[in-house]
């Protein structure tokens, strides 16, 4: 059962534009929502993360918007640059229903972002 759904699968944006990636989750026990950035041949690296007690977090050009009631969160990349071209994964962490596995991350399917110069 996929617990985190991510869209779109791919996204093409012009330099300077805004990139928006959306995720939706099902498990209300999730309490930590990170976004990871992955370049080809590399492991994912944490980009930005949010807890459900805030609705927005901004770090530089990257912003997470969080809607707890809708169980949705999104990543906004302002002034997108060609160097932002990568695969982005949303994820969620917390105890699963019936379990106590606090550590593992449940990932979305990923979004391949291409920023054209």
């Amino acid at each position: 059962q996929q617990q985190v759904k991510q869209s779109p699968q791919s996204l093409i944006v012009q330099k300077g534009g805004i990139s928006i990636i959306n995720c939706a989750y099902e498990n209300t026990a999730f309490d930590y929502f990170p976004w990871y950035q992955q370049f080809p041949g590399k492991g994912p690296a944490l980009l930005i993360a949010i807890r459900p007690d805030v609705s927005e977090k901004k770090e530089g050009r990257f912003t997470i918007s969080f809607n707890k009631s809708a169980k949705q969160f999104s990543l906004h990349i302002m002034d997108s640059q060609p160097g932002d071209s990568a695969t982005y994964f949303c994820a969620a962490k917390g105890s699963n229903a019936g379990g106590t596995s606090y550590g593992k991350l449940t990932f979305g399917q990923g979004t391949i972002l291409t920023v054209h110069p």
Partner: protein
Amino acid sequence: GAGVSQSPSNKVTEKGKDVELRCDPISGHTALYWYRQSLGQGLEFLIYFQGNSAPDKSGLPSDRFSAERTGGSVSTLTIQRTQQEDSAVYLCASSWAPGGLYEQYFGPGTRLTVT
């Protein structure tokens, strides 16, 4: 300091053979995770170790998969009797602790190809 390292970086094996993949976590990290990334797919949790606690094996896809962590540091993921569907990138991550906001640091992965 050094990040998470994994070896080998690439492994090609014949169907039916056993393989061992190694992960060296960041020194001092108590939690260690294995994930699998298939082509065009997200990351799939396999197993996680926390200190001396029993590992969470809930993500292992079959009994052909096993993992151990020796001395609370290095971990080995073993796949027995490999199948073509095992072909994927196997990623290891470590963190100071599993709970709270402790970031998971990923290694570069081992690309496994089963022919």
